[in-house]
């Protein structure tokens, strides 16, 4: 899975927003969700941990991961997995998901200067997540989040 996006901001700023927990906490998660806890030990071998909170206040889950490679303002290679509040990797089954252990699949995000003060961000997704999705194993996760996200839509409409 590859996602790209052009941001109307210089590379250094996008990098900052991506690597400073103060900012990550503001954008991580789907529309309407917040990430109230965001711990990042941003260095090679360091780990991160953040949680996702739905608009109704329910903590939906925790994600953790490890940084494998960091090239300042250019590239980050990391793993991401389902976790508990302490940052321990958990069996996805605990989230009601039937998924093979994602085995620390690698995610890569790159930051490129796009000219005119713009930045191109490229996200290359977790391969094992992709495989899981193709084999239909991600459906459980999809369903849970579908329900949760539907609540989001419902709440957004009522505002």
């Amino acid at each position, binding site marked *: 899975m590859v996602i790209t996006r052009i941001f*109307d*901001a210089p590379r250094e*700023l996008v990098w900052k927003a991506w690597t400073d927990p103060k900012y990550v906490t503001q954008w991580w998660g789907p529309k309407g969700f917040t990430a109230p806890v965001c711990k990042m030990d941003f260095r090679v071998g360091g780990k991160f941990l953040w949680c996702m909170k739905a608009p109704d206040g329910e903590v939906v889950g925790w994600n953790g991961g490890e940084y494998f490679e960091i090239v300042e303002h250019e590239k980050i290679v990391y793993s991401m997995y389902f976790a508990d509040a302490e940052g321990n990797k958990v069996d996805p089954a605990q989230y009601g998901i039937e998924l093979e252990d994602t085995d620390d699949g690698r995610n890569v995000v790159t930051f490129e200067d796009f000219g005119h003060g713009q930045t191109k961000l490229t996200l290359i997704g977790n391969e094992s997540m*992709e495989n899981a*999705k193709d084999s239909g194993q991600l459906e459980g996760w999809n369903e*849970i*989040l*579908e*329900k949760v996200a539907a*609540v989001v839509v419902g709440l957004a409409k009522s505002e």
Partner: protein
Amino acid sequence: MIERLSHGPATVHGLTEPFALSQQMISKHIACLVRARIVIKAKRGRESVCTLRPEAIKTVSDWAFNYRRFWEESLDKLDVVLKEMKKEGARK
């Protein structure tokens, strides 16, 4: 399982049948869903009945979440954060 429950409550036994999993695995899954507060389990006589929590079934049928959409929405929010950061920077 959630999909099955979205059609109405079911007994644990009723949930076991359609899936090629042991009773034990089904119970484990149900326990997870209960802990995640998506399902309520109540005893009715000798059986346990599972119901999807009301908050979990406010469904919008077409909305098919996927990993990609999760990121697209996060990046939408990042865009907003970046605009704010630029404003902050300009004020200095």
